[in-house]
């Protein structure tokens, strides 16, 4: 799997805190920053959205709404009405 992917990028991951979470597949605690497995399912985040234009320092611009506001790539977008998969 892609080395850049983290468990917090996976839809099967329940984030307990900033370091770890529960893998819903294995039903066990895992660290965010460890390698993902082949059951990885992409979690909607700004960085995965076609409306996101990346810039620097994990930041970018959201073109999904009329305000063209800044956005950050790790923002989870499961509730975003304008989220569109890249």
């Amino acid at each position: 799997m892609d080395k850049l992917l983290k468990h917090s990028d996976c839809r099967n991951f329940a984030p307990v805190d900033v370091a770890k979470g529960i893998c819903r597949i294995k039903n066990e605690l895992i660290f965010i920053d460890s390698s993902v497995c082949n059951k990885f399912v992409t979690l909607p985040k700004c960085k995965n959205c076609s409306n996101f234009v990346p810039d620097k320092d994990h930041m970018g611009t959201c073109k999904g709404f009329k305000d063209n506001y800044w956005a950050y790539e790790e923002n989870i977008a499961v509730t975003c009405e304008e989220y569109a998969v890249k």
Partner: protein
Amino acid sequence: MATKRAKLEEILAEKGMPINFQYGGKAPEQMVDREVKKQPCPRVKKLKDLYFQTLSSATVEFPYWYTRKYQELEGEIPVVRRAAALKHAFSHLTPTIFPGELLVMGKAHYYRGSFPMPWLSEGYFMVKEDELYQSALNKGSASADELSKFGTGGGNVTKSFGDVVSIAGKFGMRKEEIPALVKLAKAWVGKSVDDLGHKYEQMIPEYQMKENIMKTLICMFDSGYTLPQGREVINYYYPLQYGFDGLIEMAKEGKARVAGRADGDGLVGMDRLYFYEAVILVLEGIQTWILNYAKEAKRLAGVTEDAVQKKEYEEIAECLEWIAHKQPRTFREALQLTYTIHIAVLNEDAISGMSPGRLGQVLYPWFEQDMEAGRITEEEVLELLECHRMKFTLIDCFASMGVVGGVLSGNTFNNLSMGGLTRDGKPATNRLEMLILEAAMRNETPQPTLSVLYDEKLPEEFLLKAIECNKTGTGYPAWMNNQSAIQFLLNQYGPEGMTVEEARAFAIGGCLETSAGSWMPLTLNGKKYEIPGGSGQPTSVGVHFIANPKVLELVLTNGKDERTGIQVYPPHNKKLQTYEELWETFKEYYEMTVDCLTTTNNIQHDIWRKNNMAVFNSLLKPDCLSKGHHIGNLGYRYNATFNVESCGTVNQINALTAIKKLVYDDKKYTLDELKDALLNNFGFKTAAEVGSFSLAEQEKREDGDKYDEIYGDCLLAPKYGNDDPYADAILKEYEDWFCAMCRNYESLYAKPLYACQISVSTHAPQGAATLASADGRLSGTTYADGSMSAYPGTDRKGAYALFNSATCWDQTQSQNSQMNLKIHPSAIKGDEGSRKLMDLTRAYMRKGGFHIQYNVVDSKVLKDAQKNPHNYRDLMVRVAGFTQYWVEIGKPIQDEVIARTEYEGV
């Protein structure tokens, strides 16, 4: 001294003046555990085990969506703009449901999540911008070694590690979010309540004095931009009665009724339209938030392979889909709704001490009908109540560090009250409250803490159940005097129309703040009930906290703080030739303090009510929905809630007593000689040098012998807590003056202030900023906790003598008083021990004491826990008006709890 490392305790023992930290018997040599120990149900045990491994985690998700919408709506009416921003933020929160949860939802998507509110104060992030960026840009190695160093500090992220940045030693944030955090903070520069409040408070003529008071820690914090609300009782009634759909309809009707009409109020009559519009927006946001969780539950039900878990997710979805719109049908739905409401309020504003109030009485209609219909069993209710405790314990409050650490010890003070009386004066306790106590014993957690509103009419079975709970050592329930509280409420809120019947609806907000309530008519399946709920403004607001021993110190130093070199007060230039002159000067400085803190605080809160007013919390409380006004426009039924909080009362009284005795009555020392001894810390090192904040641990300097005699005399001077008329007369004079003095000051709502006497955790930092005091307390050491607890080791005649001292003044003049007793488990063992503890409690209440609570613990356990914190992740202690995990409180407070007099017999 030969070794020069000798501790105070040993020095005094050599001189025949032992400090005795035990009283009333002899506890066993070995460590003794608490007598009552129960276990949570298996489901909750798993959730609790997860909690113990969880770090306090912050995210910028809520502030991002809030700020985005707020900026988009520049020029909109403030209350509507704020409501729209809140709606946007609630609607976009990511829902996370953890396996095994029955009650769901949370402040943020982490298990123990929270977030900053830069619209209140962004200064910290701006000051720390470089540091935060630096931490964020450092490449984290994220090794398992690093990740497993979490033990010390419990769930606090005390240091940055891996890709996690520590924010002020408490919260962890993913480093990828730090640039967004800084950008959000910048968006609020010059616009936050903190910045705007600061701009205008400087226009007060006494501003420089206020600034100096804050710098020298005579006052602990500004409430206007740190915790603008709290220490109040929530009101769950309206959503429980009408459902959110019903409330939206009410707001729509309100809009039609008031649009364009002043109705005789030329000042704010027109504002009602905007408030109703704001109500609709916020409620829609909260409905979306709930329904997003319902969707997530359905999604999880669709992917899980575990049949039991699948069914639970489906039940969660059904529950949420219903309560997003309608009045709850079952106990479980009602409990979930109250929890959802609670979290929504806490997400609206930075709040500490938002108390559920008399939840067992609020939920009783659903409990009663479910039980009668056979829809639920008591064991199922207990499981839900244990889950409820878990969810409340997960609540974190993200406020400035001085507040979260120094004042709150990380606690959130959600106090659940039980007992008391009904409107018509009958015992209000019920079967559900017995189960709440049982759940609190099975699942021992800091939140919600419990309070018994003690009344002579309450049944013995309930009282003994509460005593059994005390014996678990959790520190709850605390005991509050129902009749005293009612007298205080009538005095304070009588001018706003409170009757004795309504006063009976009160509950405790925060640690032990008597808070106004009202009875609300509830109908469930055609049956009518009356339930209590909060109807007053926050009581966390006003002048907080004044360090009484520090004010006295500055009387002796002519208004100058010797620690910092700041001239805080105008020099009085008096010789202080009589005790009366000293006392008058103390009062003058104190009144200057209250005056300038009141006016600056009023400005901060005025900014808050104009730009950052509560919309959701407002609509919950009577009579905002019927009046069409939020809190800032006096929509609440009771508004005289601002107060003056003191800290260190007992050290101040003991110091005054020693000065009167040694300098003015016996004339053994001059005031200059005493002052010299105090400035030189009686020949001892400072607490910071020693590394302990407990009196007994202090060490003497090599050249410290010259103060031996005066120090011995100061220690042996009369002390509060021994039924000694000499000391008690000084306490009474102080209390009579203090409680009356507070009423001379006026809040921004044009209501008189009143006295509030709790310490929370401020007795540690404020003690650290205070030189030695004439009672023998050494420089930098922690004050006595609360307001009526004896200073450790000075109560030498037992609990009943302590009670006589504590009740030498009329405690109904004050919103509260606070008394902590530490009792060795062996002193109250068995049924006979329970009776003794009940008798002790009753005796204090009958004497007119307002509050008492117990730490049932062996001091040896605490000492061991300080040395070996990794063995004690679940150890809890009562600090001031709250219970906290031992490993999550700072060392000064740990030292103070260890030092408290341990009653080994009662």
